[in-house]
């Protein structure tokens, strides 16, 4: 096991790693930017090193500074958390060349699953279904129509260089496709300087279901079943739960098996997530792999009883996972609400600032993962996550009741948070009936 590791992250995930290390008897070196100086979680690390100014590009994202900190901190490995450098295969390579362990997959596995095209190829190789679509860029309107007819309308046009919804259009028939093609192409050219467009089957009201995997360096890959992250706002996950409430057991098993196959094909180890979308007929399609620990990992920890962070550190140190797939059984139901410093009354704009008072909820079935304490200042430079409230109860109904109770008990004074939005979702009949897809929150807010 490592004697000392560096945590190349901040906030709640840095605290999560510190906690895991303290339990493992591993010393920790935290890094921080000037904006995070004095943050209370840093006191729980054995050492804390300032790596730069507030701007992430000059601190948390600077590979040279992080590596220097690892060197002066005299650590054997780096935990990247999520975000920042966590899925940067170059960083993982630099760690290797500096003889510093990287707590995550190999750079090769990361690249294999990280690139869109190679990930789709990988899925095909592993026999994992992907969303039907064109093999690459569509050259003409005629070709678009031909492909669309093959895969069946409605179809989605996507910019190959794209992101953030730019250059995206849905078309329900030949006629609509013609104008959508022109618009999408023009928009892509304007936004990304690249008019390349590809076509995919459009999945209406999909659910977002992902499989947590965990592998070691001895060829073992396990799955910890699924998380349903369909409750999103503008593609940002709001509420995650496990098990997925409407998923038939046979589909659940098929998805889990597919995820393990895919990870094994990529020689993937450590924690990772294989994301799928599920259509209304329970067909599932591979989307992407997140080659890191995820924000919502606690719901899987609650239902399986497995500490993912400790497991991740142990396998990075070369330990063999002492698990059997048949023993990993979900128990009860877990839900996580992401509490963000955002103002629901002003279109959820970030609301950083000083927390005058915070009282965390407690009691049976309640877990609170947060780096915020009374007096903590949420800096404006990073994501707005203030804490994660996780509940675990025997049934989904009980879990919802406990979550509502805990959200009402949580007091955060001084800044606005997403708590009211969570309460609105949890009171919604559609949510209770698990009639949730990725469009649910927007429809709820609109209606």
């Amino acid at each position, binding site marked *: 096991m490592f004697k000392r590791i560096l945590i190349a992250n901040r906030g709640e995930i840095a605290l999560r790693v510190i906690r895991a290390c303290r339990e493992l008897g591993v010393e920790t070196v935290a890094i921080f930017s000037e904006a995070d100086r*004095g943050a209370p979680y840093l006191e729980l690390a054995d050492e804390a090193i300032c790596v730069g100014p507030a701007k992430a590009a000059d601190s948390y994202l600077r590979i040279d500074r992080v590596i220097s900190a690892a060197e002066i*901190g005299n650590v054997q490995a780096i935990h990247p958390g999520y975000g920042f450098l966590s899925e940067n295969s170059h960083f993982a390579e630099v760690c290797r060349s500096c003889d510093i362990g990287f707590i995550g997959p190999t750079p090769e596995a990361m690249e294999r699953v990280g690139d869109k095209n190679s990930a789709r190829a990988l899925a095909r190789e592993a026999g994992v279904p992907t969303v039907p679509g064109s093999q690459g860029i569509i050259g003409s309107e005629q070709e678009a129509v031909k492909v669309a007819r093959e895969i069946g309308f409605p179809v989605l046009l996507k910019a190959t260089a794209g992101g953030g919804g730019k250059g995206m259009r849905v078309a329900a028939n030949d006629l609509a496709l013609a104008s959508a093609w022109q618009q999408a192409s023009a928009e892509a050219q304007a936004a990304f300087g690249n008019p390349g467009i590809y076509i995919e089957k459009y999945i209406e009201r999909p659910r977002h279901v992902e499989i947590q995997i965990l592998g070691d360096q001895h060829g073992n890959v396990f799955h910890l079943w699924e998380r349903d992250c369909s409750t999103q706002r503008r593609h940002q996950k709001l509420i995650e739960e496990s098990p997925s409430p409407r998923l038939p057991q046979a589909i659940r098993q098929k998805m889990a098996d597919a995820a393990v196959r895919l990870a094994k094909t990529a020689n993937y180890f450590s924690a990772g997530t294989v994301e799928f979308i599920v259509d209304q007929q329970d067909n599932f399609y591979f989307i992407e792999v997140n080659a890191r620990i995820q924000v919502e990992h606690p719901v899987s920890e609650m239902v399986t009883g497995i500490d993912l962070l400790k497991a991740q550190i142990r396998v990075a140190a070369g330990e063999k996972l002492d698990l059997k797939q048949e023993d990993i059984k979900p128990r009860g139901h877990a839900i996580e609400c992401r509490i963000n410093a955002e103002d629901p009354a002003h279109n959820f704009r970030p609301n950083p600032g000083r927390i005058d008072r915070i009282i965390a909820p407690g009691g049976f079935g309640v877990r609170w993962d947060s780096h915020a304490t009374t007096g903590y200042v949420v800096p404006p430079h990073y994501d707005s996550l203030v804490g994660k409230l996780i509940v675990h109860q025997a049934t989904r109904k009980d879990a919802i009741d406990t979550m509502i109770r805990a959200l009402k008990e949580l007091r955060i004074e001084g800044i606005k948070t997403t708590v009211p939005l969570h309460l609105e979702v949890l009171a919604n009949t559609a949510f209770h009936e698990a009639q949730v897809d990725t469009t649910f929150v927007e429809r709820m807010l609109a209606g």
Partner: protein
Amino acid sequence: MCAAPTPGDIFDVKKVRRLIELMKEHDLSELDLKQADNRVRIRRGGEVVAYSAPAVSMPRPAAATAEPAAAPAPSAADARMLVIKSPMVGTFYKASGPDSAPFVKVGDRIGPEKTVCIVEAMKVFNEIPAGVSGQVVAILVENGAPVEFGQPLIKVDPEA
């Protein structure tokens, strides 16, 4: 300061009133004055902002948090000192090699271009320029010691 209350009498109500007005004016939530054994500490609202000398400038509270075991009330000489800080994380060297003379020593007069030390990061030896002019008053880090971003390295007196 008027004659009536002794200069050391920090319990002069008028004085306290003026302090409070000062706080309101500056929207302070806490005020903490200490002089030898004397101390005045006032809080408003609930927020905490502390400062250690009843002087003119109001340093940012973050700075106070930043250096928890910070210096006692700085003298006037201290106040004018400039500090050359490390622009990166790495290892501090005061000379270019074990047998070389140090780039600077206490008493040297330096200009902004003058290399004052090396900070080694990822096997790269970065020469650090002074950036300021004046006389070297102190070298704050041991040779070979690790330094973090923003760590004070060398103290310079610009008026000496």
